């Protein structure tokens, strides 16, 4: 059974490669700023977007995109303007996002809340041709933004105060980071699912940093691991006939476990050398 023989599989594979590529690139900044759960918050908010799309009969990808980007601005606003800690601001998004998603989906005529499942855990068959064009465009946009602002994002994630004294607009960069996370969530929601998509931002980064010594090598290795986990997980899900989200995340977690074990002898060797 050749999995490339199916159009839907080709589209799913391309989508998986895209999310495996850009998710760790954003994740590396989130992990550095200790905002690992931001992607999850965005995922929950995007769920409200999907529910809204069901209710209004609009296309899920753009609706989720708009909702998630609004969520990104909202969370930065809450973090700066109110006396709310970052984790509490995230918690508010989690609850509101899930509640809104299930509520709107339940209200939608002809769609049971159960059709949310494909968006929660990913599906092989839901990547439409039009989606694919949108996903490619979003990925290209993310890469261009990173090429322009990547170094400033790096400086901010290293030390916000020093970055500010270097003239970098720290708040604008934080908001940009949240918006980029929102875009990644939407790119990944079809294949990986909204509840697990942020794992592809975080787990490959966590795995890579076990053995790397610099930011750039962490980002590079994380991208390689992200693409590997996406493709391997997707292929597995095709043959085993389970949703792709869980298999992709489990493969990613497998690379983490492997590199964490590998790191012990590597660190020992480096200590001897230095």
């Amino acid at each position, binding site marked *: 059974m050749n999995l490339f023989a199916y159009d839907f599989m080709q589209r799913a594979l391309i989508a998986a490669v895209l999310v495996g590529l850009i998710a760790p690139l954003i994740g590396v900044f989130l992990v550095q*700023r*200790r905002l690992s759960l931001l992607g999850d918050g965005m995922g929950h908010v995007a769920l409200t977007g999907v529910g809204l799309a069901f209710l209004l009969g609009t296309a899920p990808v753009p609706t989720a995109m708009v909702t998630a980007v609004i969520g990104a601005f909202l969370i930065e606003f809450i973090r700066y303007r109110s006396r709310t800690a970052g984790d509490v601001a995230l918690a508010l998004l989690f609850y509101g996002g899930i509640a809104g998603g299930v509520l709107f989906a339940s209200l939608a005529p002809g769609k049971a809340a159960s059709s949310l499942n494909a968006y929660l855990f990913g599906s092989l068959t839901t990547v439409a041709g039009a989606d694919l064009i949108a996903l490619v465009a979003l990925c290209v946009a993310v890469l261009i933004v990173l090429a*322009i602002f990547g170094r*400033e994002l*790096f400086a901010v994630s290293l030390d916000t105060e*020093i970055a500010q004294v270097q*003239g970098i607009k720290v708040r604008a960069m934080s908001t940009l980071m949240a918006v980029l996370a929102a875009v990644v969530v939407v790119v990944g929601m079809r294949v990986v699912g909204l509840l697990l998509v942020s794992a592809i931002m975080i787990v490959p980064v966590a795995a890579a940093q076990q053995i790397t010594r610099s930011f750039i090598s962490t980002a590079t290795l994380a991208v390689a691991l992200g693409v590997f986990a996406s493709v391997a997980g997707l292929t597995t899900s095709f043959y085993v006939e389970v949703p792709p989200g869980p298999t992709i995340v489990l493969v990613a977690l497998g690379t983490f476990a492997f590199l964490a074990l590998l790191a012990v002898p590597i660190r020992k060797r480096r200590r001897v050398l230095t």
Partner: protein
Amino acid sequence: MSVIDVERACVEFDGDHVLENIDLRIEAGEFVALLGPNGSGKSTLVRAILGLQPLEHGRVRLFDEPLGRFSDWSRIALVPQRLPGTNSIPVSVWETVTSGRITPRSRFKRVGKEAKAAAQLALTEVGLWPRRHDRLETLSGGQQRRVLIARALATSADLLVMDEPTAGIDAENLTHLVHLLGELHKQGVTVLVVTHELTDIEHLVTRAIVLGEDRTGTIRYDGPPPVPASFADAVHHHDDHPHDQSAAPTGLTPR
């Protein structure tokens, strides 16, 4: 030309005056030591000057421009007291040093040869060029501090602001660092150093400012060194406090 111009600056934390009516003008080419006991507002004043701490009243001008309109941040380099301590991704020594030149103006430019050469020179100066590929966290506290100094040196700033730069640095490297600061000063760089330890840099300092009385931030002495004996409580000398732990930043103890 004045590099730093502070007028009637007031900072309050929950109703407590941390800085009260500070007037301070630093001209180009000065080497200023900012002294005072813990809690006297030294760091707060520096943060206010750099726009990191909002003022209750008063105003700050940098290079003759109001702080709000000042944009030429590449002219200023800050050596913080410690690493923020939030890094969880590995960052190499090299990446840390080269990050000092990242500004919105460098957005569409590649990292040039000049920047790389400056970073290499700065790392060589602080004696850490062989460690450039290592994770910053694997260095000792004193070495990390030297990396932060190298980051500032690798910029082409003409105002160098340093918060306790000599704390935790061993004797050999300290001698070299002090020599380096002297060279920079000779080249025309304006230096503002927040410190407890005047001994090592006293010969370079052209002006000493002592801050703080009853923990409120006012200027008690402003003039050339040596600081009069009546303000001795604000200045630690090696002999007085051979094991002064309060001066060592907690985040930078060697692992």
